């Protein structure tokens, strides 16, 4: 049976919309959660500017828990929570909840590593000038780490695109799901090629944009 391409293209554009929607919304919420998480990890750690063993260790364990759960199991484990947040556990919007949990803590870790690269001398200098902790974070820590943070967020975005393919398990749709459903499961090689090339282009664009932004920030 020949594959019906006339049916494929509308399907393809719907899937494209679903992927963009899932990735954009999840990324935005993940950044809003992830950056504070990264900052808290850095300031509460030993010798941090607001050292607090309890907060650091608890947060550290929580992040490790979420980061070690395979995505598909995370999706299932948080179904009641997902339903509570968006009202259903099936579909594109429902997939955003596990995608956020998956990505936010990952971003938290990446931001942590970016912030740790900031020279200790800069922080000490700020402290000696009498800056408050709040000022140190906003005026020194985050601006100093900006270029590295942009690169790390690029990594997170590409990871998120990959994870969104698995969200097809709960009927979220998307390009990755199209690749799996028709390309992998139904042996439609043509569909597989088109969808995979789309994902490659998508990833290239994100990485190029990330590199460009990071370079621009560094040059300032």
């Amino acid at each position, binding site marked *: *049976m020949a594959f*019906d391409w006339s*049916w494929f293209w509308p*399907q393809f554009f719907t899937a494209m919309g679903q992927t963009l929607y899932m990735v954009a919304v999840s990324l935005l919420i993940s950044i809003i959660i992830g950056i504070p998480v990264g900052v808290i990890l850095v300031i509460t750690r030993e010798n941090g500017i607001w050292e607090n063993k309890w907060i650091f260790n608890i947060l550290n364990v929580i992040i490790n828990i979420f980061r070690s759960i395979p995505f*598909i199991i995370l999706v*299932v484990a948080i*179904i009641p929570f997902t*339903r509570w947040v968006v009202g*259903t*556990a*099936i*579909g594109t919007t*429902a997939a955003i909840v596990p995608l956020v949990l998956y990505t936010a803590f990952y971003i938290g870790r990446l931001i942590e590593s970016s912030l740790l690269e900031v020279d200790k001398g800069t922080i000490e200098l700020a402290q000696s000038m009498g800056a408050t902790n709040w000022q140190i974070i906003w005026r020194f820590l985050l601006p100093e780490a900006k270029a590295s943070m942009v690169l790390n967020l690029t990594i997170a975005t590409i990871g998120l695109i990959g994870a969104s393919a698995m969200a*097809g*398990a*709960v*009927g979220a749709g998307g390009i990755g799901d199209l690749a799996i*459903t*028709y390309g992998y*499961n*139904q*042996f439609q090689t043509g569909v597989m090629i088109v969808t995979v090339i789309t994902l490659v282009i998508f990833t290239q664009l994100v990485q190029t944009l990330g590199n460009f932004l990071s370079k621009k920030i560094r040059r300032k």
Partner: protein
Amino acid sequence: MKKFAILLLGLILVLAGCGAKNNSGSTSTKTIKVGTTTSEVPTWNLIQKLAKKKNINIKIVRFDDYVQPNLALSDGEIDINAFQTVVYFDDFIKQRNLKLSAIGTTNIWPMGIYSKRYKKVSEVKDGDQVVIPKDPTNLGRALLLLQKAGLITTKKGFTGKGGLENVASNPKHLKITAVDAAQTPRGLDDSALAVINCDMAINAGLNPTNDSIFREDAGNKAYINIIAARTKDKNDKTLKEIVNIYHSKEVSDFIKKHYKGAAVPVNKPVSYLKDYKQTQ
């Protein structure tokens, strides 16, 4: 993986050799590796026990998906597999050009429509959400079942191959969402109807006989499960013996009891399946 397989094979040969020595006089023990999926393992545990009496040593290899067992069979890593419907099998070997043959029937797991909201299919409302499994065989099978239940019609000539593009009319404007097969029971709380494979329903604690509101009938030949072997081994005596054990009363009784009617034993020769395309 290959090295491991060779090592394993070597080990098996050595063990088989030992077995032969111990049983000098009688026929030598043969080791047959059977690939199957989780839900079928209890049946194979029993067959393993029965086969031992006939000097056949069965090793059960459990798989988690429906693609690898056929590839492993074709590559010689296992000797037979038993997990798939005849329609899926025929399609798979054609697509991948594998030299595999069905050597016996096993059982049928009738697919069902489940609902927490409704007791009858006729209660379904306009615009309701329906979740169905997304893997190709089950997706088509689910569409055929929805058609049989009078909820949708499929395109002319649709025999269960392909996806949602084969829906011809959907008078109740059902929102049909294809999800991972394992997610269909989990979707019951979010959607009006869920089309669920028998084994998934059992794994999720549903009772296929009592909890479903509409079921496939057991005479649906296309969805009868089979035992497959490499074509060159299809007349192998040991393999035929295993099929015979599968068709024994002891195994049939076990299937009926263990799966509580969810799996119905089908003890027919392979030729029974020849005309399945007309019965779809």
